[in-house]
């Protein structure tokens, strides 16, 4: 499966950039709350998908089971982990670190940008290919997933916004027509004369 668009996998940042204007055709710059709600929904979708379905981006099943070494570790025991439940959760810190890093205009940046990024990077890349069994691409969403699982929940808001924005552009044209009509109308001339007299 191809990597989702906008996915960044680096040691200090595991995140995904979304330009919602290019995806939905709607400008969110006057709707920061809506943008943030969508950001939270993306975040929740990723976390829930990993925890309840053990799936990475695009619904790809995460590699199971956990390695023998990990299964035999003290922490595995201590945190009561199940070898077949690949939920990327030991303490919960890594998934808990997924946050809305930036919400500006119609752009969202969601991901992990603190000390948990290195851990997430290790899972996403299998420690840069050194530990292939560890590679579990748990973070990110495909565009298809984003549309079906996240944006669908906001379809009425987006539709409304789209309609408002198209009205705005027609209103501009309509406004010009009105101005033109006013210019050509007698009333306007009368007003003009009054103003002149006033001076």
């Amino acid at each position: 499966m191809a990597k989702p668009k906008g996915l960044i996998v680096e040691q200090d940042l595991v995140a995904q950039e979304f330009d919602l204007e290019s995806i939905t055709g709607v400008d969110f710059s006057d709707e920061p709350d809506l943008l943030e709600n969508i950001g939270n929904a993306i975040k929740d979708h990723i976390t829930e998908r990993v925890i309840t379905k053990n799936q990475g981006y695009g619904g790809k099943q995460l590699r199971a089971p956990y390695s023998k070494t990990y299964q035999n570790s003290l922490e595995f025991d201590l945190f009561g982990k199940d070898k077949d439940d690949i939920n990327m959760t030991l303490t919960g810190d890594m998934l808990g670190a997924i946050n809305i890093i930036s919400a500006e205009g119609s752009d969202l940046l969601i991901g992990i940008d603190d000390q948990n990024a290195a851990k997430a990077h290790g899972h996403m890349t299998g420690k840069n290919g050194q530990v292939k069994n560890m590679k579990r691409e748990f973070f990110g969403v495909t565009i298809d997933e984003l549309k079906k699982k996240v944006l669908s929940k906001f379809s009425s808001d987006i539709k409304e916004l789209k309609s408002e924005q198209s009205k705005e552009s027609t209103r501009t044209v309509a406004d010009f027509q009105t101005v033109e009509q006013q210019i050509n109308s007698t009333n306007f001339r009368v007003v003009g004369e009054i103003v002149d007299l006033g001076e």
Partner: protein
Amino acid sequence: MSFEFKLKTESVNKLHDDVVRIFNKVLSNEQMMNEIGKAVVTDIQVKTKKGYSIPNNSSFKPLTRSWINRRKKLAEVNPVDEEYAPSKSNLTFTGDLLRSIIFKITGKGKLEFDFKDDHEPYMNLDGEPLGKPIKNKTLAGYVAAAGRPFFGLSRAVQLKTNSIVKKYMNRALKVQKLLKNIDN
């Protein structure tokens, strides 16, 4: 029959010139520069309070046992920040150091980050100051030299900065489009 698509270079150049002109105009926008400055300061403050060193891309080295015990005692008589915890290595006790980070616009598209004021000494259990005030800038140098550097631009905030500029560019382009519509 064949078609050949040719790019009208003059219109591309015009577009390029327009974008450059708007970009230069946007860089002079004080509101935008303030937004960027605040984003960078907040990023440093939030990440540091989480115990994350931006320059090192790792958690800060842990506090020593003796310092943890001392912090517990000092916290009884000094006002502590809400992100303070005795054993949490996050450069936060009173929170004054991180609060002292400031920025100023030094030119078109230029920001400078610095520290303001002095760092007041902590009080001992008798309510007396432990030492003398030192400049927050000096203190920042000390903590960095002691292995806890925290001042820097994270990759995340750089991307946020790009989005802020893009937001203002889009606004400017929309205004220009509107003006063009009016002209027409």
